């Protein structure tokens, strides 16, 4: 594999993109601690882990409590009997919004990944004069505080008839997702040997043909990583959802959850259960496909 030197904006190259997640430095299943030092490390980690899990404990137990059992005086108590009432009330309040979120997230994730892979391919393998500079100019788009583009964004969406629609929100996420997806794919393709592309060129394949027949089939790991990363980002967005789609019936899950939380008539345990429901899709991704998620995380961080 030709080591591409162009990894200053650093990310995992092809060989290790699907390897074990970062940090698993020593192989093996582990063993019992043998020295006092090893016990201390383990004990401190157990304490930290317990502290980190406290909010999850509250969310889960709250969802199983009935309204009557959910007084603020016994937040920490386990539910006396298992009831779904917290979760079912939260589901009633949020299920339509969770559906809206999916309606935005799925197309926006797919489209921004496809565009990102095309852009990443060109910025890594078919450089032209000024392409590095152009790439960096595009890249800055992922850092800007989105507050500084909201008013023109709303005007633009209104002008094309997409303000207040989920399509408009998806379009917004696609465009502002391009810098990060381009970055991840660019780093990913930088790890592909140039010989592959040269072979395709000798066979007379055009740029697009090379992309379709050579690059795309090799991109599945890249699509998984970028897709999960984008899914999480877009699902967790709040500001765009809040500003682009104000209509309560069309709101996405994060916006509706925040409204539910601000409502004085809703019991706290329903809010907690709702927080868990709104988090389930990204939690699922993390739990089931965690190693890909960590890869995306590291690939998406400009180091």
């Amino acid at each position, binding site marked *: 594999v030709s080591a591409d030197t162009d990894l200053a904006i650093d990310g995992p190259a092809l060989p290790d993109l699907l390897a074990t997640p970062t940090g698993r*430095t020593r192989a093996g299943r582990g063993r019992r601690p043998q020295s006092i030092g090893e016990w201390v490390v383990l004990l401190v980690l157990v304490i930290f882990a317990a502290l980190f899990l406290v909010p999850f404990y509250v969310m889960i137990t709250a969802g199983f409590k009935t309204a009557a059992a959910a007084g603020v005086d016994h937040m920490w108590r386990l539910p006396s009997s298992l009831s779904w009432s917290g979760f079912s009330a939260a589901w009633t309040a949020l299920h339509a919004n969770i559906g809206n979120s999916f309606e935005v997230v799925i197309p926006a994730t797919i489209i921004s990944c496809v565009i990102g892979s095309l852009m990443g391919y060109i910025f890594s393998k078919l450089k032209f004069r000024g392409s590095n500079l152009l790439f960096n100019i595009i890249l800055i788009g992922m850092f800007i505080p989105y507050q500084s583009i909201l008013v023109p964004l709303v005007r633009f969406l209104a002008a094309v008839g997409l303000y207040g629609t989920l399509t408009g929100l998806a379009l917004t996420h696609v465009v502002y997702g391009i810098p990060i997806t381009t970055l991840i794919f660019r780093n990913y393709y930088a790890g592909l040997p140039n010989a592959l592309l040269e072979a395709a060129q000798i066979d007379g394949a055009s740029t697009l043909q090379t992309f379709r027949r050579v690059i795309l089939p090799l991109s599945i790991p890249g699509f998984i990583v970028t897709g999960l990363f984008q899914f999480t980002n877009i699902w967790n967005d709040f500001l765009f959802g809040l500003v682009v789609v104000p209509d309560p019936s069309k709101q996405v899950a994060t916006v509706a959850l925040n409204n539910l939380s601000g409502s004085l008539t809703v019991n706290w345990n329903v809010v907690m259960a709702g927080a868990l429901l709104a988090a389930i899709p990204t939690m699922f991704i993390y739990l089931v496909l965690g190693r890909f998620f960590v890869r995306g995380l590291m690939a998406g961080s400009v180091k």
Partner: protein
Amino acid sequence: MAVDTSHNTRDIAAKRAAHSARRRRISRTIERHMPKLLIAPWTILVLIFVYGFIGFTVVVSISKWNSFGENLHQRSPWYETYKQLFLDSRFQADLRNLFIFTVLFLFVGTMMGLLLAILVHNVVMARGFFRSVFLFPYALSFIVSGVVWRWLFNPETGVNLLFKVTGVNSALHAAGLKPLHPGWTTDPTVVGSLNGALAKVFPPLKEIGAQLGIPLALIPIVIAATWQLGGFAMAMFLAGLSTVPEEVIEAAKCDGATTVQAYRRIVIPMLRPTLVATLVIFGYTSLKIFDLVFALSGSGPGFSTDVPGIFVYDETFRAFQYNTGAAASVVMLVLVVAVVIPYLARTYRGQEGDAT
């Protein structure tokens, strides 16, 4: 006739050849510029959505547009909105909060990440489990964590209830001390005041209406942010640690250093690039902070947890003070750019130098 036909045929063939040569030439030209053509639409879209829109926001920020009806006429002097913005005691409080929050969070968040990474790197069992637990909150939305921590820091329940039910408060009471009952995000206290000292150094600063100290209400937000993003810092440091050869630590130990000393003197200095990267990422995340505060505490009592992100939203979409909101968002942008551009420029220069 026959001659004519053959002549015609030759003519047509020649024309065809010329035609196809031209087409080949055109298609070769297209093919040569194909990379640019393929990225052009998306690049143009991003350039408009990022740079075009920022340009428009800058125009709004120096305009007279401060009600529902659009008015893009320039104010005079053009910086009037910015001047009023910096004289607004709420925005002053926002900048103070942003500064204090960023400093506290950068310190606590990276230290937590480094500590967890070193522990996870060295634990002999369940390494994957611990790493997953600490990174888990990162998968959540800031709104989810804001909503949950809002209840955990509600003075009537949550953490304060824990002080009661675990007997911490009875023990304090028995010892003749005051029970713990902090107001968390409802506490308007600002500790310390630099106003007097600053005004002595530079008299115009006595105009600052906000008290320049540390708002206690920011502490719960630092805790929530550390809970959510500490795992990310851990993942970064774990990646850094995995590049430190084991022999380095062994060699230090042979020279008589303890593990702690080996880490302090040798390993942690080697993690410098990771530390810088984490600080930059946390820096711009923190300067943009909005959702977490919005859901956890909102503006807080006396704007003690207000941040520019919330200010922009309120001014623009609630008060329709478009020019003020735009000016505040430009200030946010400048702050983020001041953190990101030097870092990107360094990376970019490295890139150009590497490309041989």
